[in-house]
């Protein structure tokens, strides 16, 4: 099953470009132009991973991270921003963001991070629900 990603950024051209590229790489992509829109969308169709901008009009990405982690504890959040600030990055991480990536980011690196976050979500859900393992099978490693 494709990883479901929600992209949140007020720069719509950026969101659209990124959506095209991630879709091409077989991810299922939802978009939102603000934190409020993202939170509304989140309760309708829960994504695996949210990729959030930090500086947006209205609610900031940092506040949104806290809100998402509170209401959807297994949804992972990756902050993706041009805001190279030590303070904001530490705040974001403290709020429970999985990572804080700086634009411009290579599409491969972003996808790897999304995959890692998704894997962590599965492991956590498996742990809390007592299910034996997620979709990644065990022992597939070829020699």
């Amino acid at each position, binding site marked *: 099953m494709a990883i479901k990603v929600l992209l949140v950024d007020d720069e719509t051209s950026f969101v659209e470009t990124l959506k095209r590229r991630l879709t091409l790489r077989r991810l299922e992509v939802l978009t939102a132009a603000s934190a409020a829109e993202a939170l509304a969308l989140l309760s309708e169709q829960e994504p695996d991973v949210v990729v959030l901008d930090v*500086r947006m009009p209205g609610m900031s990405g940092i506040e949104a991270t806290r809100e998402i982690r509170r209401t959807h*504890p297994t949804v992972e959040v990756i902050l993706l*921003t*041009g*805001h*190279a*600030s*030590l*303070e904001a*990055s*530490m*705040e974001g*991480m*403290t709020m*429970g963001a999985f*990572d*804080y990536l*700086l*634009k*411009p980011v290579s599409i*491969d*690196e972003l996808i*790897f991070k999304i995959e*890692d976050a998704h*894997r*962590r979500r599965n*492991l*956590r859900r*498996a*742990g*809390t629900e*007592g*299910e*034996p*393992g997620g979709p990644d099978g*065990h*022992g*597939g*490693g*070829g*020699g």
Partner: protein
Amino acid sequence: MLLERLRGWLRRRAPQPAHGAGDDGTSLFRERYHALRLLLAANNKALDTMAEMELAARAEEPFGMAFVHSRCTAVGVSVYAMVRHLDELAPGSYPELFPALSAIQDRIREAVAGRKPRREAPLVVPLAAVDRGWTPDVGSKMATLGEAAGLLGLNVPPGFVITGAAYELLLAHNDLQPEIDRLIQTSDSDEPAEIFALSSRLRQLVVHAEVPAALADAIAGAYEALAAAVGSRPAIALRSSAVGEDSAEASFAGQYATELNIRPEHLVDAYRQVVASKYSPQAMQYRLQRGLRDDWLAMCVGCMAMVDARAGGVAYTANPGDPTDRRVVISAALGLPKAVVDGRFVADEFILSRERPVRLAARHIAAKPGRLTLDPAEGVVREEVVGAQQTAPAVSDAEAVSVAEIALALEDHFGGPQDIEWAVDPDGEVVVLQSRPLQQVAAAAPGAELAGVSPLLAGGLCVSPGAAAGRVSRVERDSDALRFGDGAVLVVQHPLPRWAALLPRAAAVVAAGGGIAGHLATVARESGVPALFGLAGAEALEEGLEITVDASGRALYPGRIDALLGAERRHASAIAGSPVHATLLDALALIAPLNLLDPSDVSFRPASCRTLHDITRFCHEKAVREMFDFGRQHRFPKHESKQLYHNVPMQWWVLDLEDGFNRPLTGKYVRLADIGCRPMLALWRGMVAVPWEGPPAMSGRGFASVLFEATANPALATPFRKPYAQQNYFMISSTFMNLQSRFGFHFAAVETVAGERDHENYLGFSFKGGAADLERRAGRVAMICEILEERGFAVEAREDHATARLAGLPAAVMERQLELVGYLIMHTRQLDMIMNDPAVVAHYRAKIVADLERIASGEPGAGG
């Protein structure tokens, strides 16, 4: 407060999920393993970022604050992730780590912020009221001009300065700095097209910023006071005066906008235009090349009554291209001095003695087909000059002498040769518009005589000495600048200041027009780029043609003429010692040094961590141990470590973290055929590729020394508590391997990720110990380091402890290198014994190198 939030986060952490009976521990085990993998990936990224910062700290290439901010942020995030993942591996075991990290982060943040050199000042101040003491508030250009008017009593147009405090207010009111930093950060490319696009976005941001009412009122008030003082409502010239311009090496010639002949109702618009020119492409390049901090540079703007110049130009109190020539050089144009400064017209040149009374030594009168004058409505227009006026001198000899006398008075007062902009007003009075230190460069040796090669073009004016070769790239418009290639010869009609943005990439500059006094000439001299201006015929040079520019010899030659190029152009890195460089060093001192070395030492704890590197070291060490202990303590049969069975049971244990075995194992043994971990198999191949000859023969004295150390040195312990101390442990998955091994007194650890994501791959090899005295143990380590370095590892050694690292290579390459490491682990044991005998050392070294060559060529067989 960050600390508070960290604590809060710790408190809020959900309790660990309970695992019911019948659970084989798989999900718990996997979660831990995933945390370990993420921790190791973060460790790898942190180390890579540190290495990148250390490389930048050598100051061989320019970098800006965006680099400092982004790398500090990236390394901080990686280290935070490590601390969090360690907490997932061992919940609550290291609560002191968060405060330790937080304290270091706070110090880094302070180091990066630096001390902004600014103080309280009014938003607007009359020009007559300032002197050089005001430099931090009004910029050096206006401070100097104010002092010339006040202390020296020179003729300076009346006016006022909009200060650095006003600039700060404008930025704060619009919250611009974070947005500016964000735009610079997200572009992060030095391609001309990207620089021009970024410049445009930044300038629009400033031009559209809202001017707060307090500032608009202050500007209007200052203008009314000026109007009252001069008894009219004068048009205004707005000139940039950046704080930071005064640095001895940084002239900022022509980097910023000047707005001439502005009506009072447009003052605020013109002010924003001048402030926005802080982000002109040439100014951004200039700051980047010189390591000036963008966020420390405040744009002050001088507003002066417009001088309706009859003539004007530039005066140098020495020859900029020849420090031994101390005569005064004046360039003069009809109309506004902007014509000279922009390099738009060929100017008259007057050369005068510096001895008083000043005398005219020579003059060269040019044909002046045009001039710049004031438009009756607003701004500046170009006007044709016709008839005899074209060849008449722009100023009289007496006026030239007055300009020279004023220039020398400025030099006397400010000390050192000056570069002065002046004008003659309608009453024939000489007015000073600017004075700054003259940039001088040593004259280059005259170009070599070339037998048999005739120049393409000859003549013109050497405005920056030297010679260089490259392909012709003609630039007339910004769109041409976008495709300007690295190392090309910049060929232009008019040497406009805007082309300074291309100088870092240009081999040389050739202009059909212009003279020595233009801004582009100044920046070319400063940047050490050879430049030949006023060269007739340059406009016809063919695009893409390879030429050699001999600026000193005032000629262009076809092709590349090595005889002329001689010494490689000195590309002085102006960034060393600059504010940006100093900021990086300050931050790096809190990031990169490693103080936590010995895991068995009592000081190996969070409270001893003084740098981010210390935190990574601590987290890594503990994470590996926690993972291992987790596997030991939770006796899930499926996740027990297995003893390696190879012909006989061996002293090697293997713990499968995820998919390191090819099939589920039930017994207590694992065979090589069951191992699905490619890195482990590669290491093993290296270990068994060549049979070990046994310990080296040693002298009697060597043996006694070994016995002594063995009894006297309790520090030779592995990081693991007993009973594992005498064993060798692998932790593996299909693409991950961590080995902790101990052979006698030799300790070695190897960790690698060799999977499909090249950039996450790494190989770390650390080793220490030996039984001989420290000197010989260090000798062994040095020898191994040398061998590893020759094979592409980055190596760091201290005493008898060393780490070697490789990163970012494809899995196949990593596996080759693992074979090499496997060999070294087996065959360098006890070599410390022989380190006092150079002949024996040479023998072993030669044997090792020969063996490694054989292994690298894939020759003899592996053990699996």
